[in-house]
């Protein structure tokens, strides 16, 4: 079995997934994906089996791709804040870096 991904690779994947989760405009989805990412990566912390680690890594890479697309769609149709959110509403138009 090939060597499993390095610790740096896992950390990079973790921070990318957190960044994608933070990009959701809906309060509920944002909090859910942040909480889920933390739980899922915490569960795999003690794992040593290289096959399982590789499988987990590959699955999370796929899920990250799904999360990025979902965050884009959510941003396109979002806009209102929930009563519970403490962030102020948007005051100016946001600009995308690649437009």
């Amino acid at each position, binding site marked *: 079995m090939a060597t499993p991904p390095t610790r740096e690779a896992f950390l990079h994947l973790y921070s990318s997934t957190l960044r994608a989760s933070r990009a959701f405009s809906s309060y*509920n989805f944002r909090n859910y994906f942040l909480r*889920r990412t933390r739980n899922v990566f915490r569960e795999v912390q003690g794992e040593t089996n290289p096959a399982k680690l590789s499988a987990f890594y590959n699955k999370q890479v796929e899920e990250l791709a*799904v999360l990025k697309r979902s965050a884009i*769609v959510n941003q*396109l149709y979002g*806009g*209102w804040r*929930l*009563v519970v959110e403490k962030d102020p509403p948007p005051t100016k*138009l946001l600009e995308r870096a690649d437009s």
Partner: protein
Amino acid sequence: MLGFKLEMPRREESLQGKTRPIYLDMQATTPVDPRVLDAMLPYMTDQYGNPHSRTHAYGWEAEKAVEDARKHIADLIGADPKDIVFTSGATESNNMALKGVAHFHKERKRHIITTQTEHKCVLDSCRKLQEEGFDVTYLPVQHNGVIRLDELEAAIRPDTAIVSIMAVNNETGVIQPIKEIGDIVRQHRGVYFHTDAAQAAGKIPIDVNEMNVDLMSLSGHKLYGPKGIGACYVRRRPRVRLEPIINGGGQERGLRSGTLATPLVVGMGEAARICKQEMTRDHTWIKHLSDMLVTKINARVEHVVRNGDPNGYPGCVNLSFAYVEGESLLMALKDVALSSGSACTSASLEPSYVLRALGAAEDMAHSSLRFGMGRFTTEAEIDFVVEKIVSVVQRLRDMSPLWEMVQEGIDISTIDWAQH
């Protein structure tokens, strides 16, 4: 990349601080999980083929997607993919199961058993079958909402066609003992067991073989999937014979003709797959939120009654606040999306028949609130709701003359209310 500047939408009045209410009505419907939407979008954009088209790639890829979705749903309930029939929702599945079985066996079987706390679609189908000449027994429930197994056993007759009992009640969250009921029904050959698992699937573990279920209704939009899709599990070994209610080109084993809505089917399949993957995590989280809600409310408000079994599904908490009117409570909680009773009965002013079957007093049934928590609910939302409820109930009780009398120690039930 795009050729034009992409602007994030500015929704109307969002700059003036318009906010959306918190959603705590998960039994009415659930938000579509973003991962489910991502799985659906290809079939609404480029891959729009009809899954029943046998001759070209558009049809083949749509058919493959539908079969994958069927497999995911079958895995969720422990069934074989060929047993799943896609319908337009749990209401259609319930109609199909009850009316289909009753009409197919109408020569020799004239009896149907159900409970008093079933969903409106089941009760209405039974009423329609009663008009056609069938006998229907509506089993009563105990005070905690669970049926009595000895009453069920006694109600089964030689001409019973089908027993229909829902797994998790949508108004109170009561979980019926499906495995024990399945064992009882299995002992009587020729009686089919149908369960409406719309609220249960994906939330509590269900296995059709372990629980001896012959027919099961599933709903897409209760599993964090899209609305407008559902499924019916129809057992093939031993074969359940039923008459289809929608005739046509013979799709779905002849039981439900019509072109399948590929995006919706794919959405429901993906939702079922995610539910199976996340079931334990979601259940732990929802139990945590539910315990938080109930303990915090009970600690600060008195005379609160929980309707239904405390060991039921934790995501559905039905509380009655004594000496407070339910509709005024709901109107005062304008920042929270709650329901008092089920969505299908909320149009009429009558108290919910489910609470009445549980033996709740009229006034308590009127002042009940149903809190529906789900995968996406947060602790901050629960805290906000608890604060709101405590302040609103206090304010409404201060205005209520009945509350004054209770505080003075007068027993309300001994008063003779005179008309004048």
